[in-house]
């Protein structure tokens, strides 16, 4: 008598490979590869938020942020900044009469002189900005209203600017160079600084007008058409000036061919549209004195001579002149320092609070209730 082991699976004549996998004889196991990836067993690091990991993180953040914040605040406070509004809204303001005439078309130059006093000396290089408020240089249609290839010296774009420039694309059947609303609204006040020496003499302060634009803008992005052709007036012969401009683009700085035409730095700076409606733009640089002994701008009385061309009354704007020294963090702005200190303190404080909670209740509940 034999004992027979019964297994129906062996009997039903199942041929591996014949189901689904196609051809006969393809005896290939469908067993999935037992690899860590396919079995989702890759070695994994599972960070678990416990008091042990979160508390040190809080303290670390606190300890790192507070010094950074202090450093930033100190740097910011060391930056000297002077700001003067010369819009002339008030009747008493010296520029009041000039500001009343807000048409672009006035040909007669209106000048006014704004006196101011610096209490502290400005060391090192001093940057002179003009500031505009309520000027939406970031308006969508305004931002688009330019032709970068024209500005890059492309000849065909010079004579046939992009449609984006409309309605400042052509005037008098000639293409406008530079075309577009941005160029058309170029800031055209002229600012001059004079130091009223205590001895009564009025000393002109030398204002450097180059070096205010990005190097890449000046040398790569903006180029005059015709390459090194110095005779810009002939290059721009078939174009007309933007309607609001008093002089054509090749007369922006006739004294310096490297700063004329499209590569004029005032122009380049203006063309880099500001992000926010209240902005400043670099206007001039006052180089520090060679001897290093006297400050660049000693304390005393100054006067700002303004050739008032730029109308801002239509949009309730303000014009400012800003003098500022500069540091690695740019202009004066205490916000970041304060923010760092605040966040650092909050973290530190939270850390302390959590530490107390952890010590009090931690024994009962090991996974401290830390929000997520």
């Amino acid at each position: 008598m034999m004992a027979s082991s019964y297994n129906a699976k062996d009997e039903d004549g199942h041929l591996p490979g014949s189901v689904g996998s196609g051809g006969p004889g393809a005896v290939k196991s469908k067993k999935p590869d037992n690899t860590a990836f396919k079995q989702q067993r890759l070695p994994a690091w599972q960070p678990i938020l416990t008091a042990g990991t979160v508390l040190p993180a809080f303290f670390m953040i606190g300890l790192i942020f507070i010094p950074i914040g202090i450093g930033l605040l100190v740097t910011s406070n060391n930056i000297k900044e002077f700001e003067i509004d010369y819009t002339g809204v008030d009747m008493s303001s010296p520029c009041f009469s000039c500001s009343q005439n807000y048409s672009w078309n006035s040909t007669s130059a209106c000048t006014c002189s704004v006196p101011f006093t610096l209490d502290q000396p400005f060391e090192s290089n001093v940057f002179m900005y003009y500031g505009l408020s309520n000027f939406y240089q970031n308006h969508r249609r305004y931002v688009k209203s330019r032709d970068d290839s024209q500005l890059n010296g492309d000849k065909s774009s010079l004579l046939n600017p992009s449609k984006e420039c409309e309605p400042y694309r052509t005037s008098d059947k000639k293409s406008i160079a530079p075309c577009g609303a941005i160029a058309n609204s170029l800031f055209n006040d002229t600012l001059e600084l004079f130091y009223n020496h205590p001895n009564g003499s009025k000393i002109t302060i030398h204002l450097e007008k180059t070096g205010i634009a990005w190097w890449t803008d000046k040398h790569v992005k903006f180029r005059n058409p015709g390459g090194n052709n110095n005779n810009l007036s002939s290059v721009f012969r078939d174009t007309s000036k933007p309607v609001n401009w008093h002089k054509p683009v090749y007369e922006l700085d006739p004294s310096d061919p490297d700063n004329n035409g499209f590569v004029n730095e005032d122009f380049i700076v203006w063309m880099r549209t500001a992000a926010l409606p209240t902005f400043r733009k670099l206007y001039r640089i006052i180089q520090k004195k060679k001897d290093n002994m006297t400050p660049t701008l000693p304390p005393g009385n100054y006067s700002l001579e303004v050739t008032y061309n730029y109308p801002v009354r239509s949009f309730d704007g303000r014009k400012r002149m800003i003098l500022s020294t500069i540091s690695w963090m740019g202009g004066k702005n205490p916000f970041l320092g304060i923010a760092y200190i605040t966040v650092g303190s909050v973290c530190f404080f939270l850390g302390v609070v959590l530490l107390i909670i952890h010590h009090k209740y931690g024994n009962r509940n090991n996974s401290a209730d830390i929000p997520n």
Partner: protein
Amino acid sequence: MTWTNPLTLLRHGWTRHWNPDRPVRTVVSNLPFEDLKKREQPNRRYEGNAIRTNKYRLWSFIPMNLFEQFHRMANIYFVGLAILNFVPVVNAFQPEVALIPICIILALTAVKDGWEDFRRYQTDQQLNNTPCFIFSRKQMCFVERRWKDVRVGDFVRVLSNEIIPADILLLHTSDPNGVCHMETANLDGETSLKQRKVVPGFSSLGEPFQPQTFDSTVVCENPNNNLNLFKGYVERPDKRRTGFGIDSLLLRGCMVRNTDDAAGIVVYAGHETKSMLNNSGPRYKRSKIERKMNTDVLFCVVLLFFMCLIGALGHAIWLETFSSMPSYIVPDSNGNYTPSVLAGFYMFFTMIILLQVMIPVSLYVSIELVKMGQIFFITQDVELYDEELDRRVQCRALNITEDLGQIQYVFSDKTGTLTENKMVFRRCSVMGTEYCHEENVVVPDRKLILEVDRQMASIQTGPYLDFFLALAICNTVLVSSVTAQRQRVRVNVADLAGAERVGDVLRVKGRRSSSYSGGSFHNMRQWFRKCGLGKVFTSMKFFKRGGETLADPFSIDEDDGLSGSEEVCYEAHSPDEAALIHAAKAYGFTMMERTPHYVTVKLPDEALLKFEVLDILTFDSTRRRMSIIVRHPHTKEIIMYTKGADSAIMERLGNVFSDCCSKIKCVEQWCGWKAVCFSLKVISEQEFRAWSAVRQEALSAIEEKEERLMETANFIESSFTLLGATGIEDRLQESVPETIQALRRAGMQVWVLTGDKPETAINIAYSCKLLEHEDLVFTFSTNRKVLQCQLTNASFRGYSSAFTGPLMEPSIGLVIDGPTLSMAMSDELVEQFVELCKHCRAVLCCRVTPLQKSAVVKLIRQKLRVMTLAVGDGANDVNMIQAADVGIGVSGQEGMQAVMASDFAITRFKHLQRLLLVHGHWCYSRLANMVIYFFYKNVAYVNLLFWYQFFCGFSATAMIDYWLMIFFNLFFTSAPPIMFGIMEKEVSDSTLLSLPELYKRGQHSEGYRRSTFWIAILDAFYQSLVCFFIPYWTYNGSDIGIFAFGTPMNTVSLFTIILHLAIEIKSWTAVHWVIMIGSVLVYFIVTLAYSAICISCNPPSDPYWIMHKQMADPMFYLVCILTTVVALLPR
């Protein structure tokens, strides 16, 4: 041979042409028309055999794919926006550029579709170019061609183990019996061989098939997808008709087995074949999360609408504040200024374009990618792999993976799903004595063997011997072995004339032919009946005419059989037959072979007993028994052995052994095992002859054949002598109780719906821990309708009122049977029934029909609004599987119908545990988190732009370069969430398995709720505020340019978004690190490269050198660090 006039056939073709709706198709041989042009072919209107399952062709790919993609709302939305951008007054970006995101999305989807389609094309090509043999008239033989060359009307020859190229009407086979075996595993997964028989009269045995002589017309049904139904007839030129059915059709995709070659005429080709018509491709269901997500997309639309409204109003009001137009407001090309109200109106649309990313464009694509990844990992899971079947889990529905994590109700089939559907012989009771057996292996009981030996030794007969003989021969099991194969070749001696005459007889089915002697007549009769009942699983030899030829080959075979006796293999139709015959074998009663009229059994003393089989009364579900009438070789007595269900035998016992009966009663109580009783009846010669005559009449009857056959069977099957009873157990699959417990603990309600009788079902329910012994079990089972109505009504009320109390609630089990169930589901009771079911821990429905199964699933699904899962293995579960939210097929013993209908196919019930608790949970939490994250990400980013509008006069300026904005969404921040959706492991699989309670999170949709969505949106608002205002205050009043202002914001939000995800990720693998760090690196590289190259590439605003300038500025880093920390501090 008369050639059919081609002209008449042509006319035939024309009439067919004019009547395209004819219910039948007529096929004639192609051979006479081989040289004609295609348009003159009679069968030209039928499809060729080349198949094309790819949707697109090369030239139509783009338009068709686009058309399909535009069926999706989201795509239309984005294209609409892109078109809006071409309207000059409202455009926010360069119109061409605005097309990019939608183009990339469309292109990605198109590439994916195209790739899938190409794969299909490749398989098609491979199939189409498979070689096959087609008869050629020119060469007068079968020549090798490709599948795609096969046309309707061709003659095709298929060799053994070849795949059948088209649906072929079998006309010739090398098998002497005119049968051909095919394996349909490719079609339905059933591995048992199906027998097909030739349409008689077109080929002669032993001679090569000659298709050129085929001059008949085949008339059959139009193509349909019913694999089990096919009928038609062959009309000869002389108008004689021969009928045929599905048992003459070789199906495309099946494989010819055990037959050297077979040939026939192609009736359906290509897409019209039954297998192709059955191929319906993967199904698409929409998951619960996706439905919810779509409403959240609507919320986003509302949010977007409000934001745009704010923008529009803001712009109009802003414009109103100016008394005259300042120089920075650009007039239109004519120099006119748009009125502020109109400008505001335009601005609304511009804002929509600007803030369009609010609606996550890439979400749908990402979800698809994620699901593909999830499915990849599910199918790769080695734990769900079945060694025995060499099968992985199959995901047939591609987009409901996360529904696996939300199942609340599980409906399970019993047989084959909870149990193995493999019967095991466990007990027997002979002459009132009970013998037990081990669970897995049939080890003969010592006492029983002794008894048998004693009887063997003494009298050569007796109840014990009879019992085991009955066990061994009373079945339809086939012996398949090496010897059987050899024998088949050996008997290949029947001559041509005989075969032809057999063929004639076959054609006049059921009509009695007097030209046959008793023996062969007997064969024929048997053959007919078997075929008629469709239970043919044997290779029967019926080409025998006289006793001499009969005896000869068989005697030789017996010798062979002896030598290879240990190698006997049984092919059983039903698992319990297999169990019984193996049990008999274990006791030494080995069935050596079975032919239509002889059964040979080897006795324990190695003696061979050859019974002449006089008749077999096959099993049917009304009689619930089967009998075999044999002539004993020694005593020459005619003996009828009957086996059947206990009740079916007991009621017809003649002389009752009282003690035996009581023991049989015990059998019934054997733990729900299937009790099969055996009985014997000795029939006198003349009684048999009388009966036999009646039987013949019944067999040849045309009307009411079934009824009359039944009558005759019932007549002879009476007054048996009980031999004994066996208990067959349907074993539970491994770890079924554990799985059910785990599903229970996971908060799922498990119901069992079975067609089995209540006793068995309850026993199984106890053994698989569905019901506990301390449970209160209510059994609803009544017959009288009125009574039942009242009863159930009352009981429902009573129970639901009594057990709403917390005391009793946890342990109610409900057992309900089919008729009662249909009552309970009638309109007036259904509410109470559902209410009651909610309080039950387990519900067991017995004796339910497939339709009722699906009705129950639908009822629960609709009334309780729950996620349902149905799992089953048989054809009777298909309805239920399709009705449920998630249908799971168990590929087991009962073919593949359930698998074909299912969304997921597993091999064992226990896999359900891992599939639901681990993969379901993972897929759910992954996808839920990813969707939330996508909403968060887009809202956070879009809001940056929105806040900026307050500082640019609501003029829809973007402070970030448009290209970078596109890239930001498409490249820099898209890979991490996709990886998150595929690979996140919130909890490890071992934890999930050991704590099934974790599953409840998905059931209550805790991963993705409305509140989660809004919290994510609020979080996004907070983070965007931080990301905007810290840089804003830092740079306020300075000489910062637009893009120089936007760059730190972009960078900061990238860090925030990525680190936000990093906090969400619970387990980090190397892949995570690579993708996270890679994303950041790609951002910097792309941005740097872009701003280095783009001097005037993207007019009018070029971000030239801005990134470099910013990265040289220490402030940039300080801002980035501070903002990121502040934005993420709450988390």
